[in-house]
């Protein structure tokens, strides 16, 4: 089954052509019109995020994906598209394109949840056995799920204020380090000593699986405002360690409470090396399996949309041309 997938839920416009056979996937082509290079001259203030940019990019990007895949729309079996959560004006661009393609080619149109798709991105490369615990951690999301099957995702907990990736960006801004914050903080953290600056581990003493990163940002702000001397490398190391430890601890708690032994970590922050190392160390020590998609499948992409769309279609979920977008996901809570 050949799937064309579209993702426009926030900053990134992404299109992919994926061939699904059984439960394995072959990526024929996937492109992301990454806007990060356009952002940097503005020092953290990011222009051209809204729908207009998606509108300008989506048509040429789709053409290029089809060319690279050597794929004709006549071969198309299915169109999958992110219909939420995200910015309504941005989502509408992708959904309209998907509707036009599905209508023109008379193929099914399948709506996909962006966060659910992140949890499944790993299936582009590996096949962990269900069920697993999924940690989705990015600039816009920080959430833990139990994934019982490709279409059954239950929410365990999520952030009560800032997403982890957002905390990286804002701390980088407070320290005058530029945008995006993740890579620059990680690079500086490599030569820093995380033990020199004590930072809180928010929510660790709190039962359940929710996260909070706003207090960590405030702790950094307080240090900067206090006029105390510190090495920026040490602060970056301490901050990164605090975020990674909270993410890993909460995930371990979920594994142990639910008696599961597989974890999938996805989203932009999954590329963070300290987070990966910490997960791998714990996995060795405690005997669980941990999976990370490749970096290009961790950040927003359309391959994950194709994968989720494929399973949703197999489960009988497809949309009419009346398909609407939504701003916020409403996952069922895991019954504990």
């Amino acid at each position, binding site marked *: 089954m050949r799937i064309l997938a579209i993702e426009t839920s926030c900053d990134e416009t992404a299109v992919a052509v994926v061939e699904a056979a059984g439960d394995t996937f072959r990526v024929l082509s996937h492109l992301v019109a990454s806007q990060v290079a356009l952002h940097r001259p503005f020092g953290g203030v990011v*222009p051209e995020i809204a729908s207009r940019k998606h509108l300008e990019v989506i048509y040429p990007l789709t053409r290029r994906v089809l060319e690279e895949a050597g794929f004709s729309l006549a071969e198309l079996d299915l169109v999958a598209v992110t219909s939420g959560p995200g*910015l309504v004006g941005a989502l509408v661009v992708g959904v309209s394109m998907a509707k036009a393609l599905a209508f023109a080619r008379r193929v099914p149109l399948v709506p996909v949840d962006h966060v659910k798709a992140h949890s499944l991105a790993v299936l582009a490369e590996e096949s962990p056995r269900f069920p697993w615990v999924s940690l989705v951690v990015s600039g*816009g999301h920080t959430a833990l799920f139990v994934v019982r099957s490709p279409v059954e995702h239950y929410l365990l907990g999520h952030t009560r204020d*800032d997403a982890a990736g957002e905390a990286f960006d804002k701390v980088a801004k407070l320290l005058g380090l530029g945008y995006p914050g993740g890579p620059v903080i990680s690079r500086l953290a490599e030569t820093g000593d995380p033990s020199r600056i004590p930072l809180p581990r928010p929510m660790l003493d709190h039962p359940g699986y929710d996260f909070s990163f706003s207090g960590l940002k405030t702790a950094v702000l307080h240090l900067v405002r206090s006029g105390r001397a510190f090495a920026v490398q040490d602060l970056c190391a301490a901050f990164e360690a605090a975020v990674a430890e909270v993410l890993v601890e909460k995930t371990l708690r979920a594994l142990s409470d639910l008696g599961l032994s597989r974890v999938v970590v996805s989203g932009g922050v999954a590329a963070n090396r300290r987070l990966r190392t910490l997960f791998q160390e714990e996995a060795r020590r405690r005997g669980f399996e941990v999976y990370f998609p490749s970096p290009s499948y961790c950040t927003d992409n359309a391959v994950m949309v194709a994968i989720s769309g494929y399973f949703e279609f197999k489960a009988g979920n497809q949309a009419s041309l009346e398909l609407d977008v939504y*701003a916020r996901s409403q996952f069922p809570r895991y019954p504990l």
Partner: protein
Amino acid sequence: MSVHKTRSPEETRSLGERMARELVPGDVLLLYGDLGSGKTTFVQGLARGLGVPEEVYVVSPSFALIHEYPGRIPLFHVDLYRLSPEEVDDLGLSEIIPRGVTVIEWSEHLPEELPARYRIYFRYLSETEREIRIERRA
């Protein structure tokens, strides 16, 4: 105009919760203040006061730009942190404003004065204390 000093995030939330009582659909609140000065915390209180269910978390909209919450009056939580003034026009603020209460963080990034009943200025005083100045216009 009123000036408030809050001594904890919970006090900042309570101030927002009390303020929600006077709000009606179509109201716009422009928020000004630096990172970590209490803006999102204040909006969490507003949401509580507007009857947004407790299990619906009011989280930072910096990434998604607009969050919508169900309440006695729908609450639109907008964050212009990542936007340049030119792009704010693309957000379609004029479409959402009549539908509920709209609260806008980083109003410094608005391209022009927006007619708003409230302007609220946040200032970091110490690790736990914030100064919150509320200006009301007829």
